[in-house]
Structures are given as C-alpha cells and as structure tokens.
C-alpha cells in the first residue's frame, strides 16, 4: 500500500486550494486524485466571467481562475493523479481509487480532504410525465457540450429552473444563435444570482416565468414541445393554466446535490438539509482527520468562498497532521452547536469549538425573500451580533462573523442564527 500525508479527493477549486494551503503549511506528501482529465472541476466549462473579484480584485472567467491555481499546484510540486476515480474511503483513512494506468490503487493517508463538488439533479429527480424524446439535458451537460465539445444541443430552447447554470446557458445559447423562449421557475422568486437575471435574461429580453413549471413533455424521437402551467402556493400545477410551448430542447437547471456517496459509505455524518457532511469551523467532518470543503459541503454561490473554504480545510489538515495526538483546541473543547432559527434554512459550520483560535464566519441561507431585516446570532438568550440587511433572498448565501472573544464567552453550548422583524415580500 502507498502512503501519503494528505489525500485530496477532487481537483476543483476547493481541492486545489486545500492542497496548496496544506503544502504551504509544511505538509510534504500531498496527492490530488481527480477523475476528470484536467484539474479545475466545473471551472473549465464556466467560460463566463465573474470569478475571483474578491480574491484577486479582478474579474476572471472560470478557466482563467482555474489556471491560476493549477500553476500554484505545479509550483508546489503537488502530486496530481488525473483520470483517477476514488471508489471508497475508510474511517482509518485508507483511500481506494482506480485508473487505467495503475489499476486499483490503495493509499494510506494521514489526513483526507473531501472536495468532490456536486452534481446536477436530473429529470428522474423531478418526475415530469410525458414521453422520453431526445433533446432534454441538464444545463451543466449542455454547458459542457457547447463550451468544451463545440456542439449546439438545439435551436428552440425552454429552460426549467432559474439556477445560475440555467441563466448562464440562456445567454450562452442566445449568443450562439438559438432562440431561448423562456425560463420557468417553480418558486415565486428566482434561484440564481441577481446579476445573472440582469445580464443573462433582461439583456436579451428572455421572459422569466416565476411560479411556473413544466407539466408535460411532447415528441417521439425528438422533443417537439412542452406544456407549462402556473403553480399554486403548494407548488401544484393549476389545471386551467396549461400552455403549449414549441421547442426542440429542454434544459433542466433544478439544483445541485453535494456528491457524498463516498462520505456516506464511510459513515461520515451527513446533514439532511444541506446533503453535505456536518463540519466544524476547521472544516473537519464527524470523523477525525477527514475534512470537507467546497460544494461537497453545501452549494456555494461564489468560487471565491469555495477557495477560502478550501484554505481552511488545508490549513487545518496540516495542523491535524502536526498535532495529531494532543489537539489543544479540542482537548478543552467547549463545543457549540450552531442552529438555524427563524427565517433561516441552514447554517455552516454546524459545530464550533468555543476556544478556537480564529474568528468564525457562519454562512447560511434564508428560507424566503425578506426586506429590512436584522440578521442575528444569539447565544445565552441574548443577541451577540447583528447585521442589518436591506434585502435577502434564498438565492444568495449570507454570512455573519463571530470573533473568538464572543465565542469564548458563550456558556450554553448553542448559537442560533435567525432573522428578526420579518416582513415577507409578496404574500
């Protein structure tokens, strides 16, 4: 069996950041295992810009952002195994992977970073009735076809779901000459970032039909059209609102799910709401020495945040490798559970050590659109920090930072993140 100090699973922005940061913190033998033929994760197909403004002060495209980290990985002589799929990990940190060159590989790792990202929900997860013609793709698959393979999936397009990938593809297909008829969104608010609503839909006069869904699919060999309908508050189609829309292509942009088969098989505790592992402020999972970062933990909006999360995992994996026996932070740990309160759907990390040496940023998603609210962190029955927000939507992640002094003084073992003075827009 081979040995390594740190094995990073997945070579996207999260995995590369973790590997680079661990190497800079003195970890000698770092290996990245990536199943694709290049490093970069989802970035090489995200040719649009909007990456890296916060980290580099520049607006980069996905491939450019990836390129900067690929260069760092090379400079630090980090071992990279491409076309290598990880099949299994164990709690004692044995990683089993496979590739066509070496066959089955087993590596005994001092620490592991999970950075497998997420995958798209498909039609199966949606259950749309109707025929099964060709011409139905997930938005990410279409993105890969158009931007990497150079193949246009169709000419008349309907997009179901207003997640960012769907919005980006609405513009991309329009620029390449397709007619994008509409984007349908089940919820009463868009799923993607506001900037993408503006520059991908409004710029090209593509209608956004909020509170609508696809209820039927038509066509035998090739898609010929879809039936859309308005939905009621419970998300159920309203009978007399059916409308036929002619199209040869349907793109599904209905969300991403963290890719955690490997984590589940290793009995790492998974949060039902985020579908990612429970993590603490060090990005460590329920299994000591196994860390997780990026979209495998929860779906991030910004790659800059993914990279920062990767740095946290890399730095703490390095610290774990150094201090393995007497981890001082945890030895006298006052473990605080972080819980979502009123108006909040989920908060990351779910656990914080009261005596941790750094300030901790809690990231969370709200459960509806709210205007003029206070974001509050509460502990010991009082508000320990609050931030005012003009508007907050489920499409955009929010955060609140607690200083180490604040964390140290908490006695009840719990932190709650919630919104106060709620005013729901619309309903």
């Amino acid at each position, binding site marked *: 069996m081979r040995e390594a100090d740190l094995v990073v699973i997945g070579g996207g922005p999260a995995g590369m950041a973790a590997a680079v940061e661990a190497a800079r913190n003195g970890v000698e033998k770092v290996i990245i295992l990536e199943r694709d033929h290049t490093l970069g994760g989802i970035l090489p197909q995200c*040719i649009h810009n909007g990456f890296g403004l916060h980290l580099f002060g520049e607006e980069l*495209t996905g491939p450019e952002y990836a390129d900067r980290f690929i260069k760092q990985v090379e400079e630090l002589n980090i071992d990279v195994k491409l076309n290598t799929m990880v099949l299994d990990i164990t709690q004692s940190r044995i990683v089993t992977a496979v590739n066509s060159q070496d066959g089955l590989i087993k590596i005994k790792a001092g620490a592991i970073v999970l950075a497998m990202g997420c995958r798209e929900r498909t039609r199966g997860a949606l259950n749309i009735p109707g025929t099964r013609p060709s011409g139905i793709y997930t938005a990410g698959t279409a993105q890969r076809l158009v931007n990497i393979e150079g193949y246009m999936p169709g000419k008349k397009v309907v997009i179901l779901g207003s997640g960012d990938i769907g919005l980006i593809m609405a513009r991309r297909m329009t620029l390449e000459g397709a007619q994008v008829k509409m984007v349908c969104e089940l919820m009463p608010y868009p799923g993607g970032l506001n900037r993408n609503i503006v520059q991908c839909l409004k710029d090209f006069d593509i209608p956004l039909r909020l509170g609508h869904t696809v209820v039927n699919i038509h066509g035998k060999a090739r898609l010929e059209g879809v039936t859309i309908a308005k939905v009621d508050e419970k998300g159920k189609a309203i009978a007399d609102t059916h409308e036929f829309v002619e199209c040869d292509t349907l793109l599904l942009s209905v969300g991403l799910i963290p890719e955690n088969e490997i984590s589940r098989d290793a009995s790492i505790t998974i949060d039902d709401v985020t579908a990612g592992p429970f993590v603490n402020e060090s990005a460590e999972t329920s299994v000591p020495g196994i860390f997780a970062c990026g979209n495998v933990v929860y779906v991030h909006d910004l790659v800059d945040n993914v990279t920062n999360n990767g740095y946290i995992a890399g730095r703490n994996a390095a610290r774990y490798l150094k201090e393995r026996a007497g981890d001082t932070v945890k030895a006298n740990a006052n473990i605080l559970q972080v819980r979502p309160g009123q108006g909040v759907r989920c908060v990351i990390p779910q656990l914080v050590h009261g005596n941790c040496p750094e300030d901790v940023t809690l990231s969370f998603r709200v459960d509806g659109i709210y205007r003029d609210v206070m974001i509050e962190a509460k502990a010991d029955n009082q508000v320990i920090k609050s931030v005012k927000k003009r508007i907050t939507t489920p499409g955009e992640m929010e955060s609140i930072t607690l200083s180490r002094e604040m964390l140290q003084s908490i006695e009840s073992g719990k932190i709650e993140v919630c919104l106060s003075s709620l005013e729901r827009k619309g309903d």
Partner: protein
Amino acid sequence: MSKNTELTCIVCPLGCKLSVLQGEDDSIIEISGHSCKRGLSYAQTECINPERVITTTVRIRGGQMPLVSVKTDKPIPKTLMMKCMKIINRIEVMVPVKVGDTILENILETGANLVATGNAT
C-alpha cells in the same frame, strides 16, 4: 423632473442594489447602494451607454479539443454583442494557445481585443 433608476450591479456576484438619481438632462445627480467604486462606475455607464464583456469560444485547429475559451479584454457596447458574435464565430486559430494570447485586435473598432482565457495544445 429628476428620475430615479434602480439597478442591480453586475460587476461581481454580490449584486448590490444601486439607485441612480438623474436630472432632467439625464446628468447623474446621485448614486447610492454600491459597496465599492466599481459599482459606482457601473451605474454611470449603465445609465448612459451600457457595456458588456463577451465571453465565448473560438474554433481551434490541430488541438485535442475543438474549442478554446475567449473574452473581450474590455466591455463593448451592449448593442454590438450579436454583431461581435458573428465575427468571432468565423475565427479559427492554430494551437498552441495560452491564457492571455490575443486572438483578434480591436474588434469592431471598439478598442477591445479578443483574448484567450483557456489553454489549448
């Protein structure tokens, strides 16, 4: 009568809500809501002459993959987007291409160059 326009800043994914107050002659009286100075200049151009960066691909010859990704190195007037796409889609370049290589200079006299954002070998 002065008019007030609500915009969403698209310069970065934070998407700040901007509010622009313009006078009768369209001159800008006040801009608010931005979190940084990029947002300020975005609000100015968006109200007077909206501009966008184009990100797309060009065909390559002799490479492992059929395309390489490109962008305009400056925003171009929004109204010229489709015209630029027509020109870009006629381009074919030989490998190797590196991030930052200029593919086409001064596209449609806009002063913007088309540059590679990916590598191709």
